[in-house]
């Protein structure tokens, strides 16, 4: 029983992984492209401060259990909240063709409140790093 289960998978694997390979190439290419672009396009100033080990803006000497600023916490929470909504896109993405234009409109309607929420936190200044 175990063998039949495994064999069935290996048989169809060669064709099915092409999409994943493509997506991986695309993702890696995007990362590489942005890195190259920032290095070539951005201005460069080398100072002693910049050569230090970087730890998210916190002074890298002293006690590791330093109570840190609330800014990181707020950003992390907002990230979690917006990030988790993505899971509702999976069923839509899988059935994208069957749902068609109406499905697309429905997803826009689903995203609209999220976008309003984004505008709200923007207006509240939750993403303004200096003012927080």
């Amino acid at each position, binding site marked *: 029983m175990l063998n039949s289960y495994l064999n069935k998978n290996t048989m169809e694997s060669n064709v099915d992984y092409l999409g994943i390979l493509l997506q991986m190439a695309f993702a890696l290419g995007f990362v590489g492209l942005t890195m190259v672009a920032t290095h070539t396009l951005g201005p460069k100033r080398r100072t002693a401060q910049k050569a230090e080990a970087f730890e998210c803006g916190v002074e890298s000497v002293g006690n590791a259990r330093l109570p840190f600023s609330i800014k990181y916490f707020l950003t992390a929470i907002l990230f979690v909240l917006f990030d988790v909504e993505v899971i509702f896109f999976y069923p839509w993405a899988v059935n994208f063709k069957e749902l068609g234009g109406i499905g697309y409109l429905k997803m826009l309607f689903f995203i609209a*409140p999220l976008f*309003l929420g984004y*505008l*709200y936190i923007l*207006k*509240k200044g939750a993403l303004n790093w200096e003012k927080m």
Partner: protein
Amino acid sequence: MYPIIVLSVAGILSMFIGAFKLKKVALPAVLLATLAAFGSNLLPQNFNDTPLYSGMLQFDWFSIRYAAVMIAVTLVILILSRRYYRDAAEHLGDIYALFLFSVVGGMIMVGSMNLVMFFVGIEILSIPLYILAASERNNLLSNEAGLKYFLLGSFITVFMLLGIVLVYGTVGSFDFDAINSFVHSYNSSDELPMLFKVGVLLILVAFIFKISAAPFHFWSPDVYQGSPAVIMVFMATVAKTAAFGGAYRFLDACIGPMSDDFSVMFAVLAALTMSIGNLMALRQDSLKRLLAFSSVANAGYLMMGFIGLNEKPTDTTLYYMLVYSIANVIAIAVYLTVKESQGSGSIAGLRGLYQSKPLLTFCLVLAMLSLAGIPPLAGFVGKYAIFVEAIRDGYAWLVVIAAINSVLGIFYYFRVMRAAFEPAEGGPVQVPYVLGYSAVLVMCTLALLVLGIFPNLFFGIW
């Protein structure tokens, strides 16, 4: 369905009113939206006997009635919240938005025809309440109340989720109709699969927690005392109405014939709940805590409505809930004025109220008489109707316990009234004037009288 849409949009709007710092507009806009929701709830197009959205929500008479009561009580609480939120204007828009979202959750819960929708509704109801309970950021009591409510609430919710998944695992569907026909396909509920029974029991445990009935009532006095008074009255009235409505919907539409098996359990729990609530309320000094235990006791009376559910209308419970809500709102409104002038939330702080505010005292007295169940006030009619139905179902012993408890209740409600008539040490207290405050209170009090003398006004119009 319309009130859900109206209130959701209004909630988002209120958030932006808060973000753009338009303090003056916040309350009128929110009140207008609530009125619009109340009106749209009564539109004939809103009524629909078949479930909408692929069998998710159903707006039949049951949900419309519950939605009407919830929106109306919210409206009164919002008007009375002006006294409380006069200074704390920084987050006003957000606070009103959370109120509205919570009511939306309650309506979704009461109207749900699917366990997924049901779960989403109960969460939309609860999550704003967790925030509101902790909304006084610098008050440690409020912080503690919020944390306690959040921890216990999410802990119990997970048990409800486990129950939902077990029910899904045996039936293979979240749909109430499918679960109902699954139960019907067995001759007696003894033959039902064990996993299904455990699942239903776990969901009921979550309800018993949400309505703060024994043995899961321990959170409610602490949370009610720590939360801001306006939030407390919202939790004790609107959230509880939603929880009772949701429980009815689940027992009636989902497990249907099986719900009679739980009658004895509900009867025992009701007796336990009202006894604990009344006995603990006797020894309280804080008015808020007294009202919290009175809320536990009233949950006990209301639970008597779950007995023999299939043969009787659900009107009596809703009537009782409405009447209890109005009385509770009046009591908290008086508490707010006293707290503002005296700075003390104890029963003794009510002293001298009659000398300075005879009208408020009159309202408080009628509210307390209604809570105690003295005729001809509405509280009496509500209790009477519930007791009569329990006797008809053959639970005379439960009615005897409930009657003894009502007598116990009279003691502490009269203590509150007596304190209001006693003279204060420092002469009569002055309370700042807030526009429309007394008018709304008097109207609520009149509603108690009218509903008590002509109960058919309520029972007849549906």
